[in-house]
């Protein structure tokens, strides 16, 4: 009859789960024992390969198993034709794809994929770019993805002889517009801008710097608590890789940015990043202008010690060095 009330005893559920897991643990331990024995015996047969498959499906973080898998594959490749090798690699890539979906942040999976492409007679960089783009759609902040993307782009450029700096730069713009809280996207931008300026000399570097500062200022005001924004801002203001600014130009830039941040501090008086940046930039300004440090810097550091007591000794250290 319907309308029977459901009684959920959590203790019962927990016991059930423990029983199931106990079984799985015994299974897993057997697999590991098997693997260790196999490897010690230098077993490079297809049986050994499928043993590593089973193990890695359960635990892709066990990097030794990946090493063993590569040993097996390398040994197999020695006696196989290029076509056979290619189809084995394709199988590997498919296997890795399924693993990546489940564990997108596992170093060893990305690493093995890289090894596969390096061992592949004819790697498809187009496919790889599509794959990493999909992974970054799922999680734009996955630094493994970004790192892999740089690798793929590099290989593509080598294979085609064509630079991808412009489309990659636009890609970071798209990702940042969607969500600028993204260390990797900003980082990638810092790598791309110097290359972009070198490869497209018609770009006005100063205009680009101005645009980037406009962009980062929008982000700063939208979310002053986002650290990635401040890191990028600092790069923009201090880097020599965008525009070679003269001493005076650098000073002007610093003063302009200090003013902008002070305005933000005015509406967000407890903003840790505003205070830190102001202390740093004012310090930098003083060094450049060979002037004595403003007392305001001490003021900022005092305030930081109040609002960020976890790091008060760090700020004290900073004060001592002034």
């Amino acid at each position, binding site marked *: *009859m319907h*309308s*029977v009330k*459901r009684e959920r005893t959590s203790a019962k559920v927990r016991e059930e789960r423990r029983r199931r897991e106990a079984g799985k643990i015994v299974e897993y331990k057997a697999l590991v024992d098997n693997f260790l024995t196999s490897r010690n015996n230098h077993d490079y047969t297809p049986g050994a390969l499928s043993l590593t498959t089973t193990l890695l499906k359960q635990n892709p973080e066990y990097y030794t198993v990946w090493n063993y898998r590569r040993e097996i594959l390398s040994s197999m490749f020695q006696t196989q034709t290029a076509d056979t090798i290619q189809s084995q690699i394709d199988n590997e890539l498919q296997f890795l794809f399924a693993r990546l979906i489940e564990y997108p942040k596992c170093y060893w999976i990305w690493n093995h994929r890289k090894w596969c492409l390096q061992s592949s007679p004819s790697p498809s960089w187009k496919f790889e770019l599509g794959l990493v783009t999909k992974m970054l759609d799922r*999680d734009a902040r996955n630094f493994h993805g970004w790192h892999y993307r740089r690798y793929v782009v590099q290989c593509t450029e080598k294979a085609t002889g064509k630079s991808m700096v412009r489309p990659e730069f636009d890609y970071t713009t798209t990702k940042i517009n969607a969500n600028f809280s993204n260390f990797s996207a900003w980082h990638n931008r810092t790598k791309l801008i110097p290359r972009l300026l070198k490869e497209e000399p018609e770009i006005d570097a100063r205009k680009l710097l101005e645009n980037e500062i406009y962009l980062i200022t*929008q982000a700063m*005001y939208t979310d002053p608590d986002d650290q990635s924004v401040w890191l990028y801002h600092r790069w923009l203001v201090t880097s020599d890789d965008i525009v070679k600014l003269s001493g005076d130009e650098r000073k002007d830039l610093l003063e302009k940015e200090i003013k902008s941040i002070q305005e933000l501090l005015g509406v967000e008086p407890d903003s840790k990043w505003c205070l830190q940046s102001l202390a740093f930039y004012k310090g930098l300004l003083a060094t450049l202008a060979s002037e004595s440090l403003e007392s305001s810097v001490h003021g900022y550091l005092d305030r930081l010690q109040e609002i960020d007591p976890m790091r008060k000794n760090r700020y004290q250290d900073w004060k001592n060095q002034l």
Partner: protein
Amino acid sequence: MATTTTPAADSTETCDVLIYGTGLVESVVAAALAWQGTNVLHIDSNPYYGGSWAALNLDELKAWTDRVNDAASNNTPFSDAYLYISRNLDPRKYAIDLSPHILFTRSDFLNLLIKSRVSRYLEFKPLGSFHTFEQDSFEKVPGTKEDIFTSQTLTLLTKRSLMRFMKFVIDWEQNSTIWQEYKDEPISKFLDERFGLDAPQIVELVHSIGLLPTPKAPTELALGAIKRYLTSMQVYGNFPAMYSMYGTGGELAQGFCRSAAVAGAVYRLGTKLIGFDETTSEAELDSGEKIKVTEKIISSEGVIAGDEEITRMVAVVEKDCKEWFAEGESSAVVIFPVDTLDGNRYAVQVLVMGSGSGQCPSGQAIWYLSTQESGEQGRKYLYVALEKLEETILRESTEDFEFDVNEEEISYLPNGLPVISSVRLGESLRNFSPKESLKYLLKLTYSQKVTVSPLEPTADSKVIYTIAPSIDLAFEGIVDQAKGLYELVTGTTDDFFDVDFEDEDDDATATAAAADTDIRDVAEDKDDDVVGHHSDFEEVAGEMTI
């Protein structure tokens, strides 16, 4: 679907609860009671489900108009219906929503739909396009961090103020020190004094995000409404709301009726309740039958009337209106704020339903307009809004819009984007006279009594009356009302929809368990390693700090 029992020659039927009217709230209660084993007889005088929430085809709509205008016998919340229908329309190709509503993705009603599994009977579509009518054009509302960041029109300080407010409002209940003293004051006052927001932002927050009728709405109420929109973004995608196809309310009511029938409730449409004898506890139907009611009667007809009257207009146009829809969507909300239509005291809210909603054939769209202003004034403002909608759709969908721009009128933003002087653009747009005109296939205006301030249903006898639908464009208070009625019948809400659907596999029970938890708990990402969805304005877990 419903089974009709044929009473034996001289026996009286019995039921525990007789529900009169298949409106949304009553239908939820019917299902809730039926699943708890109550013997429910659910009847409706109409030949269709949904009552005041129904979506009608054109023949039903004509009949409805006649009924509603017959003051002597009208016991619906509706009155003063004026209907024009063009000839040669296939009546069955339309589903005109009498009381259209949208469903926010973070709402107790959606939770109930999932928990009760009624959602499985329905097809939902996303609604992410909310526009505010400002300076003769429809501006898309900035409701996410992305919108605010990329906006080319908001100043830096405005972006900061907006973001600060958004962050606060996500958790406003926890921060009563900030708003307590403004509790009953107008929300506009609170937004201005406490957050320094400017008029345009206040208008958008109040009208298009909060869906409130005026900026004078009390702060406590308004904050809840604003939070509802913002926390609903990103639950399922880049849209805060949804609606069900073929009629927003009627389909939901019918879904709950179906659920109730599965649980054993009996349904009779086209049946009137004409009397009830308190002494014998016998209800008399218009068929002559007498039903013995052992517990209660819940009636939505001849009812506690709401304290306010709103005005509604429905217009079916021969345009698909896709210019107003986001990609992959077939609907939009347009709000005309207070004082944008020659002195309107209340906003005019428009729900645009394209053919993708299943309510009309392709190449057409339905415009549902409503305002809290009543009577002649109400109709006047709806007509002004209608004109603006017409102008705008003709302008936006025309192919031959041209005007000359010379170099001086273009300036460039620091990031290189060219911008045409908005004054000049506005001028040209205002002077634009479209070469075509808009064809209306149907026009309907009517008044509706609604509840603005929620009334408590009273139960002094065996008969409980429900209250009329509320004014909100979103489904608000349905679950609370249903629970209230349920409690009046059973004495408790503990077992309200606490149902074991008797599935054998783990998956199904896992779904039921998941539905028990608030969707928010599932969506919140507390683990740095697990990718989840979270509101733009909440703290992101696991930030790196040096």
